[in-house]
């Protein structure tokens, strides 16, 4: 890294500049990932974009889109729903037992409670 946080490699500089203005393919992205700050030029590019957009005159957002976003916003901001009530956290099971249902097999950290557990205890077919 040279002065001002710029990489000394011209090739890397070129990739970082390309990343800021038009993005990179997966191979180049992997190459710049080794550099401490792949977003080196993102701020400068954003500043230029801001200037160019403002100089041309900003266009108002279509009313329909705005209404859609206003309706969508509260749902995005809403907190995530609580976990489903029939799943309770337990210690991860080392090896799921056969026949105890999908919740145990898939999660490993959940157990059936309530009706499911009772059914398993009383229904010999559930073990198949």
């Amino acid at each position, binding site marked *: 890294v040279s002065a001002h946080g710029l990489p000394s490699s011209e090739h890397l500089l070129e990739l970082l500049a390309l990343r800021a203005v038009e993005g990179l393919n997966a191979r180049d992205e992997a190459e710049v990932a080794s550099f401490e700050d792949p977003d080196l030029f993102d701020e400068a590019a954003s500043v230029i974009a801001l200037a160019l957009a403002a100089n041309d005159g900003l266009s108002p957002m279509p009313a329909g889109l*705005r209404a859609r976003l206003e309706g969508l916003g509260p749902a*995005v901001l809403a907190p995530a729903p609580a976990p489903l009530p029939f799943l309770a956290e337990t210690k991860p099971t080392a090896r799921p037992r056969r026949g105890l249902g999908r919740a145990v097999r898939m999660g490993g950290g959940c157990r059936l409670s309530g009706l499911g557990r009772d059914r398993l205890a009383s229904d010999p077919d559930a073990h198949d």
Partner: protein
Amino acid sequence: VSTLCGTMTTPSLGRASRKDRPAGGLCVPSVCKERRRTVSEVQSTSEDLLPRVASGDPTAVKACLDKYGALVWSLARRMCRSGTDAEDAVQDIFVSIWKNAARYDSTKGSEVTFVATIARRRLIDRVRQVGRRPVESGFDGDSGVAVSAERAETPVELRDEVTLANRALSELSEDQRRVLQMSIGHGLSHEKIAEATGIPLGTVKTHIRRGLIRVRSLLEEQANRTGRGAPS
């Protein structure tokens, strides 16, 4: 324009560490502790909307659309193939902004730069997925989306940022400005720019690289010159 390094003793000052970046590869433009805020950022901090969004304030959604809607829409118009594509992109961008609002830190970067960076990153990803649009294409009137011909006033909160951005742009060479305008302003690939201008591809890349280095340097000089803001 945004958070700028106040000290220059360490070469990599002012660069975001990876753990500070929003999910999905998005970057908080400036997150190092040594960075300082510009005066416009200091002035606007009390009016920042993203902390309100992060706290779940539903009224902040409308305020956010008021403040940044025209900017994000204008950026999307420049880079999308059609009005429908631009609408989808803008929706995607705002959802991303709202979901990442908690990651915004006013002591480390300006809100408008945070928003513009998310918008641009999303748009770049989108353009790469669907392919670049032709040089002369525009979508006004071609997509069934009612695109207004009127111009929105630049929100007063963004004017300081725009002034500083223009100052940085004005200090570039004519070629650098022209090439960056085609690349960043209109989303043209390096190859398309070379074709359109007759400038060799390697020279296009050089102009873009040197132009970005220059703007980055100017932003840091600006912060050092004004010495504004308190260390975070």
